[in-house]
C-alpha cells in the first residue's frame, strides 16, 4: 500500500480556486449535518471545516474558554487567522452546546464580515422532525437567495438532490468495500473525506476508480471499529496498522455516521430533510444509548471487529455521555474497547500509542 494506490484528485485549495475562477461562491461549513444539495443548487461550493489540523488555536483564546473542544477552537481560529477568507458565507449547523456557542459568537460578536448562517438540526425523530427541518432548510434557502441574488427552481433543487444522493451512494459503497480496498487507513480516509469538498460528480468518479481497485479479500490484520468525532490526528491509522490492527468499522461522526440514505418523494425540501436525518445513530443528535449500542454491535458483526477504539475529542460532551454504557454493552458481547482522548489538531500523544499497542497485544 502506498500513496500511489489512490488516484490523483484535487485538494481543497484547488477545488476552491477552480470554483472561484468560474465566479462561484464558497461556503465554509462547520460540523456536522448540513443540506449539501441546497448549497449546490445555488451554485455555492460547500467546503467543510473540521478543525482543521495544523491551525494555530491561540487566536480562539480571545473568545473561548479553555474548556472548549479543539474543533470549535480550531474552527474559530481558522476564521480569525484569515485562512477562511475565500469563503463567501459561513454555515453553522447546531451539533452541540459548543457549536451553538460558536455560531452565536460569530453572529453576535466576531462578525467576520461575511454572512453567518447558523441553523438548528432537530434532535426529535419522525415526521415532525422532517417537517421542521424541511422548513428550516427553506429558511436557509431564503437567506442564500439574498446573498446569491437568485434562486433555483424546485426542479433544479431536486436535480441537485439526486446528484448528491448518487454521491452518497458511492460513499456508502466505499465504506462497504473498505476491507478489500488496497488502501492504508490514511489513504482511505483521504478519499472518503474528499466528500467534504469535492463536487459530487467528481466524487462519484473518484469513488468509481477506487472501487475498481477492490480485491477479493481483506488484509490479514485484526479488524476493529473506530469511533469518535473525526479521524484526526491521522497517525491513529499508522499506529493501528503498525500494531497489526485495521480500522474496518467506521463509526466516526464525520464519516461513518454521515452515510445518508436517499429521501423519498418529489418534494426536494422534504427529501433533503429525510436524507439528512437518515445517518447512523449519532451522539450529536442525542439518540438513545440503545440505538448506539445496536449500531456498534451491528457494525462489529458486519466487519468481524474484535474491538472498538473510541478516539474522542477532549471536552466533547455528546460523545462522552454514551461511553460507559456503550462500552459495557460491547464488553458483554465480547468486544474489547478502549477510550482515548485527543486534540484532533495536535499529534497523537505517546500515551495513546502505548494504549493502542496494549490493546493489540490483548487481541493477538
Amino acid at each position: 500500500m502506498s500513496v500511489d494506490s489512490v488516484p490523483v484528485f484535487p485538494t481543497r485549495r484547488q477545488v476552491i480556486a477552480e470554483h472561484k475562477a468560474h465566479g462561484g461562491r464558497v461556503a465554509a461549513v462547520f460540523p456536522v449535518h448540513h443540506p449539501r444539495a441546497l448549497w449546490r443548487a445555488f451554485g455555492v461550493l460547500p467546503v467543510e471545516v473540521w478543525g482543521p489540523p495544523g491551525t494555530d488555536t491561540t487566536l480562539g483564546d480571545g473568545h473561548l474558554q479553555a474548556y472548549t473542544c479543539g474543533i470549535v477552537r480550531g474552527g474559530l481560529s481558522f476564521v480569525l487567522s484569515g485562512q477562511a477568507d475565500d469563503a463567501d458565507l459561513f454555515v453553522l449547523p447546531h451539533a452541540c452546546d459548543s457549536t451553538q456557542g460558536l455560531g452565536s459568537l460569530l453572529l453576535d460578536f466576531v462578525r467576520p464580515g461575511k454572512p453567518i448562517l447558523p441553523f438548528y438540526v432537530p434532535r426529535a425523530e419522525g415526521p415532525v422532525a422532517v417537517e421542521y427541518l424541511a422548513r428550516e432548510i427553506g429558511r436557509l434557502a431564503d437567506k442564500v437567495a439574498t446573498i446569491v441574488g437568485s434562486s433555483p427552481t424546485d426542479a433544479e433543487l431536486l436535480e441537485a438532490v439526486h446528484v448528491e444522493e448518487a454521491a452518497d451512494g458511492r460513499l456508502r459503497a466505499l465504506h462497504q468495500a473498505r476491507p478489500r480496498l488496497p488502501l492504508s487507513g490514511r489513504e482511505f480516509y483521504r478519499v472518503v473525506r474528499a466528500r467534504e469538498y469535492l463536487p459530487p460528480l467528481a466524487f462519484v468518479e473518484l469513488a468509481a476508480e477506487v472501487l475498481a481497485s477492490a480485491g477479493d479479500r481483506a488484509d490479514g490484520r485484526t479488524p476493529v471499529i473506530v469511533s469518535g468525532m473525526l479521524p484526526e490526528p491521522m497517525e491513529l491509522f499508522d499506529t493501528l496498522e503498525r500494531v497489526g490492527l485495521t480500522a474496518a468499522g467506521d463509526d466516526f461522526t464525520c464519516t461513518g455516521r454521515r452515510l445518508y440514505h436517499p429521501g423519498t418523494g418529489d418534494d426536494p425540501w422534504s427529501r433533503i430533510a429525510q436524507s439528512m436525518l437518515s445517518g447512523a445513530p449519532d451522539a450529536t443528535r442525542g439518540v438513545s444509548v440503545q440505538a448506539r449500542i445496536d449500531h456498534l454491535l451491528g457494525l462489529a458483526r458486519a466487519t468481524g471487529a474484535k474491538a472498538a477504539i473510541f478516539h474522542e475529542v477532549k471536552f466533547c460532551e455528546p460523545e462522552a455521555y454514551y461511553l460507559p454504557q456503550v462500552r459495557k454493552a460491547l464488553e458483554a458481547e465480547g468486544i474489547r474497547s478502549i477510550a482515548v482522548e485527543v486534540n484532533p489538531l495536535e499529534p497523537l500523544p505517546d500515551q495513546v500509542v502505548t494504549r493502542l499497542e496494549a490493546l493489540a497485544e490483548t487481541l493477538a
Partner: protein
Amino acid sequence: MTLTDELRYQANVNVLGAVFLRFERLQLEWKMHEKGFWKHEHLAPPHFAAPRLKELISKHYLKGRYANGHGKVAWLTSGAPAELFTALGFFPLFPENHGAVCGIRRVAEKLSGYAEDAGYSRDLCSYARTDFGAMLSGETPVGKLPRPDVLVCCTNICQTVLHWYQVVAHHYKVPLILIDTPFLYEQAEPHMVAFVEKQLEAAVEQAERIVGKSLSEPRLREVTARSKEAVELWAQVLARGKHHPAPITAFDEFIHMAPVVEMRGEAFTVEYYATLLAELDDRVAKGIGAVKQEKRRLIWDNLPVWGRVRWLSELLAARGVSLVASTYTNAWGELAALVDPEHPMKSAANVYLHPILNRGTGYKLDVMRTMVRDYDVQGAILHSDRSCKPYSIGQIDQREKLATELGVPALLLEADHNDPRAFSEEQVSTRLSAFLEVIGA
C-alpha cells in the same frame, strides 16, 4: 398503587412528615424572633420566609421519597413544561435541583466520584455527574429519590440534558419524552413554534398513556394560571433588588428560587412568594439592606457556585458589596408575560422556546446591559462555569462589551457550579479582591 403503599404515603407525608416539618419551621421562626438571634457584622438577618422555604423543599423531597407506589413520577429538566405533568398528576422531580441540593450540602464531589469511577468523564456537566452518582449509589442527602416512570427532557437549556437523560433512560429502562426546542440564534420563526407545539401535543398523549388518564383542560388552565402567578411574583421579588439598599441579594435568590423551578403550578408556591414579597417591601420601607453597609452593587452571570454561596456572600458583604441581580435567577421571571393561562398549550410552545439559555450570546449581553442600568450597578461577575458551556461560551466577549461600551468593569471568575475541585479559594479571593479594588469597594 397498593393500599399499603398509599397508607404509607399518607402516614409519612401528610401526617407524620407534615407535623414534623411544621414543628421544625415554627421552631425556626420562633428562634428568628428571639433577641440576639443574629449577630453577623455585615449581613442582615435571613428573611423570615426562609423557614417556610425549608419546609416546602423538605416536604417536596419527602413526597418524592414515597412517591413510587402513590402515583407516577416524572423526572424533568428545569426548562421542561412542568405544568402539563403537574396537571396530569405526576410527581415532578428535577434532577438539576437535586444536583444543586447536593452542591449546597457539599456531597456533590463524593457523588460525582461514583460516576467518574463508573467511567463518566470529569468534563461532563457536574449536575449530571452528581446525579449519576446518586443514581448508581443510591446515596442522596434528601433521603431517597423516587424511581422515574418517565423522563421529560427539554433542550431549551442545553443539549447536555438530552445526553444526560438518555443515560438515565437506559439505566432505568423508562421512556424519554423529548421536547426539542430549536436554539434561537435570532428570533423564533413560525415553523419553530409549530415544531414545539406538535411535540407538546405528542408529549401529552404519551404522558396520558403512562398515567392512565386524560389531561383535563380546566386543570391545565388552573395549573398554568398558578404558574404564571408564581413567576410574576418571582419577577417582583427580583425587582426589589433595584432598591438602595437592596433588601435581597442574588445569593438569597439562588436559594429562594427552588419553588419557582420545581413547584410552580402549586398554590403554596404562590403563597410563598407573596409572603416573601411582602417581607421585602417591609424591608424596603424600613431601609434594611441585605448587606448592612451597601457601598457597591454588582450583577452575577451564570449559575451559582453552590458549595460557596455563603462564602462568597460573606466575602462581598465584608467589602460592602451587594450582588443585586443575576441573569440566572432572572431566567425564571422574564417569561411571565408570555404565559397565557387561557391558551396553555399554545403559549407553552412560545414560552419554552424563549429561556435565556435558548437564545444567543448577544441576547444575554442585552439582558446584562438592561440589568446594569435598571439595578444601578458598578460591576459584573461573570462566573465562567467549566461545566456549563451553553451559559459560559460568549462571556469573554460579553465582559469586553460591558467594559468598553458601558464602562462597567467585569470579572471572569473561573469555577464550576457543582465541582469544588474546579474552585480555588485562594485564587478566587485574590482575583475578587483585585476586582473589588477596581470598583472602589
